[in-house]
């Protein structure tokens, strides 16, 4: 009897976990907030997708944790998980019917109960015990399928849900291309995918992933077999294609999405700067927003006629703003030279706050504008072309990103980059290897501050005004999240991280309220599943996937012998 229970208990356990997750999502209001948006029009809405993904996740967990290898037990466990989860939701409905939960949980509204019970209260609630076990059963079967098929299902379902969620991005983009407009009409309705669009998308992605899992290895070895010159041409043509796409992007995307891109771009600039300080040099700086503020305020003071000190153009002010950033980077670096780890983090956190409180203060109001900030900052312009609209500012930010990426790439594998990385690994030994810690640390702080100040200057001319409240500590934390999720010390990682953590929440207004929750969740999940980040440095990728390394080693050893 006990034997059966040990086999069974993971299904119950994960079911309870699933129940906790779904009830929590409901009571937080996420379910209701997501219900407006349809994934597949009239069939499948985003709140259902949210709950289904949660149930599939725990169902998969139940299957994975099953101690027995018999497929039957895997299926039983995942089914149990679904039943238990459904039971927890049912419990919520019953309790909600008996007592007024709303006194504590303001989101526990009748609308929520309707959503959870498929629209007809207790009449349709038994459906829970069909739908949830079906989802978890699907997860169990997914676990039992061969890897290629599993990948196929996950990829195509993720794409369908993703296409549904990003409809506001995809539909106008497709519609803008004359000939594709009809296709857009066929795939999308005003709210969500059409049924035929969703099935077509599912099929296409399935076929593509299947073909890739069969032929992908051949393509990769084919690429590796190419002579180095051939590989180089291929890589450069890839980069050239990417550049062309980046260049015409704002024309395709329109004003709202270009605005999102500019925000992502500013975070890429900030992220690459912090990547040098934290990712390379290992100096945990939590007051990084200070240099962003300095860049923005320096630009404002030098250009705004509102204060009337100077009336420089943006381009005249930019070098001063960046230079001031470097000076402050070094000045704030000097007192913390001897600090390490946690102490450094706390001290820099303080610096960030000091700068914010200073720009907010009444005492400095005549110079820094106080709480009202500084307005009337002129737009940047080159030879009569003004960077006014988001589509135009995009190019300014793109140029900034290119410059910063270029500098980061050059520094990365240089004498200085190695000194930073050595310092990150072991400060004492780095010094014993002849690295001057003072100079090396200050160069890291200075470079990071310069990138941040550049971002601040562009931010100021983008908004044409600066306010103290946009310089709060959350920005520092957001940037840190971006580089952790993207991959510490990795340049493409920063870009991917910024797109995922800054771009996506901007696109999905439903997420806005849950932004911090999603950040926290993303960090926890990343630490558990992919601690090296979304797009890690090549060396770190090897570190976390040692079995692949061993395989490669074996191959090279064979090749060399």
């Amino acid at each position, binding site marked *: 009897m006990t034997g059966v229970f040990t086999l069974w208990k993971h299904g119950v356990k994960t079911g309870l976990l699933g129940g906790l997750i779904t009830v929590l999502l409901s009571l937080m209001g996420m379910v209701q907030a997501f219900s407006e948006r349809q994934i597949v029009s009239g069939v499948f809405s985003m709140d259902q997708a949210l709950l289904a993904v949660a149930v599939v996740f725990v169902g998969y967990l139940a299957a994975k944790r099953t101690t027995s290898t018999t497929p039957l037990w895997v299926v039983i466990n995942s089914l149990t998980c679904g039943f238990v989860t459904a039971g927890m939701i049912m419990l919520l409905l019953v309790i909600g019917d008996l007592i007024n939960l709303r006194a504590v949980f303001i989101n526990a509204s009748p609308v929520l109960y309707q959503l959870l019970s498929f629209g007809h209260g207790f009449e349709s609630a038994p459906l829970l015990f069909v739908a949830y076990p079906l989802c978890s059963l699907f997860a169990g079967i997914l676990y039992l399928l061969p890897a290629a098929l599993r990948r196929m299902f996950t990829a195509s379902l993720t794409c369908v849900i993703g296409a549904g969620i990003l409809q506001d991005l995809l539909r106008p983009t497709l519609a803008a291309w004359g000939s594709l407009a009809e296709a857009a009409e066929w795939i999308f309705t005003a709210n969500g995918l059409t049924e035929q669009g969703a099935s077509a998308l599912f099929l296409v992605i399935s076929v593509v992933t299947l073909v890739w899992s069969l032929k992908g290895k051949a393509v990769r070895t084919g690429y590796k077999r190419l002579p180095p010159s051939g590989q180089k041409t291929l890589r450069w043509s890839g980069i050239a294609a990417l550049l062309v796409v980046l260049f015409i992007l704002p024309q395709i995307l329109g004003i709202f999405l270009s605005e999102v891109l500019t925000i992502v771009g500013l975070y890429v600039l900030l992220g690459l700067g912090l990547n040098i300080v934290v990712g390379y040099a290992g100096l945990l700086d939590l007051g990084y927003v200070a240099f962003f503020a300095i860049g923005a305020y320096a630009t404002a003071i030098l250009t705004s006629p509102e204060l009337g000190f100077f009336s420089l153009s943006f381009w005249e002010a930019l070098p001063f703003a960046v230079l001031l950033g470097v000076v402050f980077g070094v000045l704030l670096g000097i007192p913390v030279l001897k600090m390490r780890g946690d102490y450094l983090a706390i001290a820099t956190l303080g610096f960030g706050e000091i700068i914010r409180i200073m720009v907010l203060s009444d005492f400095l109001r005549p110079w820094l504008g106080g709480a009202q900030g500084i307005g009337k900052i002129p737009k940047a312009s080159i030879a009569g072309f003004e960077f006014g609209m988001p589509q135009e500012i995009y190019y300014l930010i793109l140029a900034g990103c290119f410059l910063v990426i270029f*500098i980061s790439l*050059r*520094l990365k594998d*240089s*004498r*200085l980059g*190695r*000194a930073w*990385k*050595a310092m990150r*690994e*072991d400060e*004492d*030994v*780095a*010094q*014993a*290897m*002849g*690295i*001057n*810690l003072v100079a090396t640390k200050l*160069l890291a702080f200075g470079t990071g501050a310069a990138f941040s100040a550049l971002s601040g200057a562009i931010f100021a001319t983008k908004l044409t005004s600066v306010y103290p409240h946009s310089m709060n500590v959350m920005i520092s934390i957001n940037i840190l999240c971006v580089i952790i999720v993207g991959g510490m010390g990795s340049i493409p990682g920063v870009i991917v991280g910024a797109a995922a953590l800054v771009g996506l929440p901007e696109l999905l207004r439903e997420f806005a309220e849950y932004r911090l929750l999603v950040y926290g969740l993303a960090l926890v999940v990343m630490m558990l599943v992919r601690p090296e980040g979304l797009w890690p440095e090549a*060396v*770190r990728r*090897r*570190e976390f996937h*040692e079995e692949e*390394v061993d395989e490669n080693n074996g191959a*090279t050893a064979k090749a*060399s012998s």
Partner: protein
Amino acid sequence: MAIPILTAKRTTKRFGGLVAVDELDVEIKEKSIHSIIGPNGAGKTTFFNCVTGFYRPEEGEIQLNSHSLIGLLPDEIVRLGIARTYQNIRLFPSLTAMENVLVGLHCHLRANYFGIVADLPSTRKEEKEATEEAKRLLRFVNLTGKGDLMAKNLPYGEQRRLEIARALATKPRLLLLDEPTAGMNPSETQTMMDFIRHLRNEVGITILLIEHQMRVVMGISEIVTVLDYGKKIAEGPPEEIKRNPIVIEAYLGKGSAAETQGVAA
């Protein structure tokens, strides 16, 4: 009489009430292999830390070729030509073997910030030469082809050798080895002994080592200094040290000297 490369005069290092190194006088002769031995806590590693600038001795003087080292920072001392390895290997774990050696070359490279960003021809040339030199050093310590592996993923013996390669990259005249054969099996130990001898004979580097394995100490060193409670209790060629009753007493306790001699006789 060979010239001393390193001279310590009445060097004293205290930690609060504990005197870790007590008025130590040592002379290391140019191109010698000199061992420092002593029971645990005798102050051997503390003395190493004083020489390399991690600790500043309270009293006394340490000179490299009559150039005082007192008050210099570790990065300044390594430039003068003293490199070291650590008792518990301290590589840069997440850097590749190649990068570890390149960091060792750091103080012989000139590249500055603007040269790096502008990718000046001189910087590029220097970087290429450094890579060649690093490859040569990896080959020298028998780590050819391991350059792209992360240091922490190397087996123990290879990590020890990589640490020596990194120390050699700083082009030292005096190399301090802190228990280079710790945790090695007899055949690995023999290889390491041959390697140390090779370093001195072929490359001409003076070696100062701390060692616990008597076989190594007696096998390769020309002079042995024995420390106990921070004080020098004996110094001389290995054969003399082996028979010195004070040394035996320090290691095995009072009365042991007589017993051992009795057994030996």
